[in-house]
């Protein structure tokens, strides 16, 4: 009896051990088949990559990725963020000490640098002509502020030839195309004109599809509240520096919450709020409510970053409410202040693709990045395969036919067929190396025209524009320090705490000064300013940013 029990126990233990072994080996990274060959007999190199942004894993037989694999002899297994924040996932990686070969840490990049997880690249780059050429003059901006190493290669904002941007996705005051059409396409420059137009339209059209018309929205939910707090800097004619405004003469950074333009702007918002032009739920609505309100087509205008309400616009287009979609306007306090809502794309030097110390073949990894930056390969990454995804005419101009356009709009087809996941590897934007085509098919002028509907064409024609970015002043040359919001606020520093405190005060007081009765506005504003000065060390904040501006001037200017 006893003996049988022992045997049984051994049997179960062995079974359990077997299950554990299978389960554990199944999870070990890099256990996938080694020694695979490419079609021309070279050894296939395997790398892993993790991008700390949400994304979908492309299937193994993705057509374009397969073609790239054949050319480079490299297969990259890509992983994306799921259900966590970048900082959380990066924290877990750091705790484990094992990293994928390639990594884009997104918000967690500084953590990776601090933990010593990334390989300094400056000594390697000279050997890779495409990478060197890609980084160009921006080389010096990339150095880590504390130790002078270069840890990552930025992927976005590197323009080749010229920017081909057709739509504005940054901040602006937006207005419905229907409103412009109703008023016979006026030119709107100032805040007063803007709200005057909204008021007249709202009076003439109190309801849209039976629901009350909403004049103006400002989303202020959670981290999305920047459009509530930052318009003063545009009002004063500064570009979107984010954290502060920078005086060009004295090179000093100034907090824009205390400037006269801030008061003037919020006084106007307070006034129109009490005229009923601003949605009374605007400070309490969550993001979903905001999107669903815009999606009904009854919101006449808002101040926001274009990318924030993409879902709502997509929904309006789907409902064929083309005239309810929006046009960006460059609004300032008076006509002689020039709006700087557009800026030249900037290389985001806060992060990028890095190679970790877990990577065993650093040179192979860099060679792969170098190969991907090859002009031919860049076209393969964005346009796809010639003859399958696009056609070339005898002048070398690319185009798509109807079917190819339709395919490119279907997310499932895109995931299964194109090289889009490689967008997190360094790539150029703007034009192809020969200057004949846009690198992004959506920015190819003919392709862009093909996506416009009749309303779009009518509005553009009325103003004599060719694209919607023409509604805003063309971007000026970026200042050398631009944008100051990429300053790395370090933990435990007075300026970091000051920024958070200012945030807290603004979040509470801006809605409050807007909602207070117009007669009390001045008093409320005084109180807000006093609270701001009292709770946050504004001087420490301004000093830290000023120092950064001067440092950048010296290094980059």
């Amino acid at each position, binding site marked *: 009896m006893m003996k049988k029990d022992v045997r049984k126990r051994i049997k179960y233990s062995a079974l359990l051990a077997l299950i554990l072994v299978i389960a554990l080996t199944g999870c070990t990274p890099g256990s996938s088949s080694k020694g695979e060959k490419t079609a021309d007999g070279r050894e296939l190199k395997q790398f892993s990559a993790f991008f700390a942004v949400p994304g979908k894993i492309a299937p193994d037989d993705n057509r374009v990725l397969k073609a790239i694999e054949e050319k480079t002899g490299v297969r990259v297994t890509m992983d994306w963020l799921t259900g966590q924040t970048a*900082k959380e996932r990066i*924290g877990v990686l*750091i*705790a484990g000490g094992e990293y994928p070969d390639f990594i884009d840490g997104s918000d967690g990049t*500084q*953590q990776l640098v*601090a*933990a*010593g*997880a990334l390989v300094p690249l400056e000594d390697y780059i000279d050997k890779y002509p495409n990478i060197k050429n890609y980084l160009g003059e921006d080389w010096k901006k990339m150095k880590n502020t504390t130790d002078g190493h270069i840890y990552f290669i930025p992927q976005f904002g590197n323009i080749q030839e010229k920017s081909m941007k057709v739509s504005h996705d940054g901040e602006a005051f937006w207005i419905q195309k229907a409103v412009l059409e109703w008023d016979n396409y006026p030119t709107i420059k100032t805040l007063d004109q803007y709200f005057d137009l909204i008021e007249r339209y709202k009076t003439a059209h109190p309801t849209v599809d039976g629901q*009350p018309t909403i004049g103006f929205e400002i989303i*202020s*939910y*959670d981290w999305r*509240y920047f459009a509530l707090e930052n318009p003063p800097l545009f009002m004063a004619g500064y570009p979107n520096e984010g954290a502060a405004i920078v005086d060009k003469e004295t090179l000093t950074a100034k907090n824009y919450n205390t400037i006269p333009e801030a008061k003037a702007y919020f006084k106007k918002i307070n006034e129109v709020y009490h005229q009923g032009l601003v949605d*009374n*739920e605007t*400070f*309490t*609505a*969550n993001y*979903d*409510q905001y999107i669903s309100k815009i999606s009904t087509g009854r919101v006449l205008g808002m101040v926001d970053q274009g990318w924030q309400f993409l879902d709502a616009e997509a929904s309006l287009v789907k409902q064929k409410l083309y005239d309810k979609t929006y046009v960006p306007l460059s609004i300032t306090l008076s006509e002689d202040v020039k709006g700087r809502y557009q800026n030249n794309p900037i290389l985001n030097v806060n992060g990028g693709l890095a190679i970790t110390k877990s990577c065993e073949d650093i040179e192979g990894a860099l060679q792969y990045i170098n190969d991907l930056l090859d002009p031919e390969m860049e076209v393969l990454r964005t346009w796809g395969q010639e003859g399958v995804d696009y056609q070339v005419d005898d002048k070398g101009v690319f185009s798509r036919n109807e079917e190819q356009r339709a395919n490119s709009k279907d997310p499932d087809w895109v995931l299964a067929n194109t090289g889009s996941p490689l967008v997190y590897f360094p790539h150029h934007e703007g034009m192809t190396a020969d200057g004949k085509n846009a690198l992004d098919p959506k920015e190819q002028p003919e392709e862009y025209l093909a996506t416009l509907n009749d309303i779009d064409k009518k509005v553009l024609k009325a103003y004599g524009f060719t694209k919607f970015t023409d509604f805003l002043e063309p971007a000026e040359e970026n200042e050398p320090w631009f944008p100051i919001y990429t300053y790395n*606020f*370090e*933990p*435990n520093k007075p300026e*970091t*705490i000051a920024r*958070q405190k200012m945030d*807290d005060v*603004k*979040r*509470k007081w*801006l*809605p*409050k000064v807007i*909602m207070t009765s117009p007669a009390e506005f001045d008093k409320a504003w005084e109180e807000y300013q006093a609270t701001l000065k009292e709770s946050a060390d504004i001087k420490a904040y301004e000093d830290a940013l000023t120092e950064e501006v001067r440092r950048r001037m010296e290094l980059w200017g």
Partner: protein
Amino acid sequence: MAKKELQPSLKTSHIPAGTSWIGYNLSRMKSQRQLMWMSFPFIAFIAIFAYGPLWGWLMAFQNYRPGIGFMEQDWVGLDHFRTLFTDPTFLRVIRNTLAMSLISLFLGFVGSIGLALLLNELRMILFKRVVQTVSYLPHFLSWIIVTGIVANVLSTETGIVNVLLTKLGLIDAPINFFAEPKYFWGIVGLSSMWKEIGWGTIIYLAAMASINPSLYEAASIDGAGRFRKMFNVTLPSIKPTIIILLIINVGNVLNAGFEIQYLLGNGLVQDVSETIDIFVLKYGINLGNYSLATAAGIFKSVVSLVLIFIANGIAKSLGEERLI
């Protein structure tokens, strides 16, 4: 009250004459070895996942930077605690946490026990089942969905509450519930009550099911009606359950939550909506100041422990069932 006699080993009088205290306990351990083996995995689990991570508390006394050797961190003593307790925001969030927690605790208890009592009286099994199922389903919804529902219900445009109140003529204009700090705690309390009420009743119903029916019969013979029986039989019988749950929940008072306040809160109500956890997120995790976050965590744990002992002590002095 046989349960109080369950620990005879602590009484020296139980040791048979001629055996030492150690020898007696060893022989008892031997006779209970199967039980001891069975408890081993759980002790190991607790040791690894509950006590092991405690060494991380040392972070609170450093300016911790991840990825750097433990001894290379700079030690700052009680600086982070000092920052916490001199920060007016932190004192405010303690108040909010306590207030919202106590409101939810009270509503949760009263609601769950009340519903359990009512359900217990029902004789129509089908109806009882339906009510029970419907009331505990919200427990399985995540807060993001619940707060979405709450936001819609209280919306000024289409929210059913405002529509009803306006139609009934109780108010002239819709109330913007999320713009007024005075409503926030109530909204949080009622939302968590709605979400958890059905789940809470399950344990009380189980306790009620084990009440000896002869007690009810005896009460009936003595002429007790429904409500008499509820108050004099059902409630006293589930008292031990209530007290144990109360002690457990008192330990959670500083965990008033995070999600509901974070998701429903906005700038206008932040003075009353922010809890300790939100403060930790904003000033600790988001600013990369893990040490401050740890210090706040230690504060919470210590206070919770003290509260549990106090509640336990009160239960003991009242001669009630207790946790420890």
